[in-house]
């Protein structure tokens, strides 16, 4: 038995040494088993007739886009799976119905063959309509599967005229699928309507909007966005808060996402052991047009409804999210010694409320994205005094100590002298 244990330990040490040695050489093989899915990006390019216009550095919008695509395809990080989708590339006719369905995948999402992708892009010629909504839906389907970061980069020079499908609503619905998909938009024309539509699409998914005026700006920005997709991030777990604490989902330490409608509460539960500290932080994203004043409240309550601690935040003006957090350290001393019961975990209810409001024209469903971080750590070393270790500091302290010392010295000196005098007289 002992020999076996030693053998196992030896093998472990050997493995550890090997792993440490090889770790640098084979990071992908050793550290990242197939669970680490590669991030997926789809570039959605507008190939509508208007892309013929020559107004970007004296060249047509199409050639600027092609040049940018060539630069980007050269620079795509190896781990990114890239796909390309076009809209308005095939149907040159006037029939709106057909024109508004015109979107297809030019290059499938997968490991990138740069030459093949470039050849595919080179064949494009400005042709048809601008069906942004259907293109986004198509792109979201292309990126389906896996658990990695997903990003759509939409490059367009025109607003969606296809209606009734509002691309902004489409974007919000895609975001509500809970697949962590971000849409970044790039507009090639500085036009108020396009800007509004593209900003709305970007905001709905937590993406960005860029107005492009030069070719190098276009390629630089698209490269930046593709690189962003490659950044490793922790993928949150989707959860669904309940309407009351008793029905609330029980959460462990981790990162969660949820959706919360305006004016509705969300409840979660966390088990906290004695001697542990609960840390919860939450942000609610304003992914649609909301009124200027807003707030969010996170409360920790006992199961009986007594409030323990709360975090709240309010704000005004343009924002991407409003966030707050709370700490609840649970002392380890409150377990009675006279019972045999083991220290029980306390169920703490977390109530999330928001005070967003939106104009009547804004749809309130699906709810706004919520990000919730739960951490459970050891309880802090409680303060027994205001100052560190109860120590003193400053000239007043020194003065007081010196005076006390002096007084004590004088006193004992005087006593000693008296005693000698008394002894002498006797």
């Amino acid at each position, binding site marked *: 038995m002992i020999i076996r244990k030693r053998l196992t330990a030896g093998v472990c040490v050997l493995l550890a040494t090997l792993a440490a040695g090889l770790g640098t050489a084979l990071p992908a093989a050793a*550290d990242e088993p197939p669970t*680490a899915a590669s991030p997926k990006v789809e570039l959605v390019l507008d190939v509508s007739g208007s892309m013929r216009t020559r107004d970007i550095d004296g060249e047509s919008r199409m050639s600027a886009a092609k040049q940018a695509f060539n630069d980007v395809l050269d620079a795509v990080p190896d781990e990114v799976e890239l796909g390309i989708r076009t809209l308005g590339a095939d149907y040159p006719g006037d029939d709106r119905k057909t024109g508004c369905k015109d979107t297809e995948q030019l290059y499938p999402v997968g490991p990138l063959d740069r030459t093949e992708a470039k050849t595919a892009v080179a064949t494009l010629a400005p042709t048809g309509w601008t069906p942004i909504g259907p293109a986004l839906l198509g792109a979201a389907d292309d990126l389906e599967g896996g658990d990695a970061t997903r990003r759509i980069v939409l490059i367009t020079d025109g607003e969606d005229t296809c209606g009734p499908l509002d691309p902004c609503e489409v974007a919000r619905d895609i975001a509500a699928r809970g697949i962590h998909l971000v849409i970044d938009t790039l*507009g090639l024309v500085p036009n108020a309507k396009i*800007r509004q539509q593209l*900003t709305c699409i970007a905001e709905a998914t937590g993406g*960005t*909007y860029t*107005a492009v*005026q030069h070719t190098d700006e276009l390629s*630089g*920005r698209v490269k*930046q966005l593709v690189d962003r997709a490659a950044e490793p*991030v*922790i993928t949150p777990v989707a959860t669904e808060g309940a309407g009351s604490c008793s029905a609330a989902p029980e959460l462990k*330490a*981790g*990162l969660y996402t949820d959706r919360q409608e305006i004016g509705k509460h969300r409840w979660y539960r966390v088990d906290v052991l004695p*001697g542990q*500290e609960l840390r919860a*932080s*939450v*942000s609610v994203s304003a992914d649609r047009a909301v009124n200027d004043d807003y707030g969010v409240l996170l409360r920790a309550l006992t199961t009986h409804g007594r409030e323990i*601690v709360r975090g709240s*935040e309010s704000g005004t003006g*343009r924002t*991407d999210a409003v*966030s*707050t*957090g709370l700490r*609840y*350290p649970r002392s380890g001393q409150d377990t009675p010694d006279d019972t045999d019961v083991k220290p029980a975990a306390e169920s703490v209810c977390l109530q999330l409320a928001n005070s967003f409001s939106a104009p009547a024209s804004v749809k309130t469903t699906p709810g706004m994205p919520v*990000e919730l*971080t739960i*951490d459970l*750590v*050891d*309880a*802090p*070393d*409680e*303060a027994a005094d205001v*100052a*560190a*270790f109860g*120590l003193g*500091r*400053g000239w007043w302290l020194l003065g007081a*100590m*010196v*005076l*006390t*010392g002096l*007084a*004590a*010295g*004088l*006193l*004992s000196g005087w006593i000693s*002298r008296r005693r000698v005098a008394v*002894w002498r007289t006797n």
Partner: protein
Amino acid sequence: MRITRSSTLRRGCVGALLAAVTLLTSAGTAVADDPSASASPADGEAAGPTEAGTTFRTATEIQQEQTATADASTGDYLYWVFPADAGQRPTVRAKVSLPESATRHGASTWQVDVYDGLRRRQACVYGHQTRKAAPDADAVELSCVLRTVRAWSEPWASDPLPGSYYVRLTAVRPAEEDLGLPVHVETEVTSAGRGGAHDVDGALAEPLVPGVSAVSAQDEDPAQGGTSIGVEPEDGWSSGWWTDRWLWTVGGGVLAALAAMSGYSLARGSGRPSRVPPGA
């Protein structure tokens, strides 16, 4: 709780020992410190990251004294995260270089916000947190001086605690036509040590770094590692037992002893009578 109490005791003992050593060697170290002090500003100008995150979760990690730059579009929300330890008073400075005024249409207001590791907004004590850029301005400079970070606070207070701090930079009131125009931003965090006057008792078990419990769980399972969300100061988090209050208190004790001795000899008079037997 018993564990934490004993750790306080241990912290105390080590602290007392170190205070004594420091007191004895302080004259020597003062001389030795000089060369390193003159060398550190050169190291401080380290180039930082050239990208910024766009959400709390994707915030770019920076260290204090590093200059982080990023190219972005007007209207983007840019996030950085830096570590701040107890006793520091961080100052966040940001400079936004605006696009050429010919392409702009109006004034824009920029703002820098700082959030702690629990995503609670932290107040700026002073500094230009929000500033309006005139339509013809080239750049706008923002700053925010935080409160001094404390080692411990009650859970009901939102005092700054050791841990991660998020910087969010955005245009809070951009001119509508200027959304999406390219800007270049530079951010830097510096901090002033505030000394023992701000050293409080108590300490957090872990700094306020989001996901800290998830990361420590992953340490046990190295297969999942590689994506830590925490930032740590370059020289690690302070252990919490050192404060210059040790020097003051021990120094005060020494002075008191000296004063007592001189007071005694003053009151006792010079010398001791030769005929006094021992023990009198």
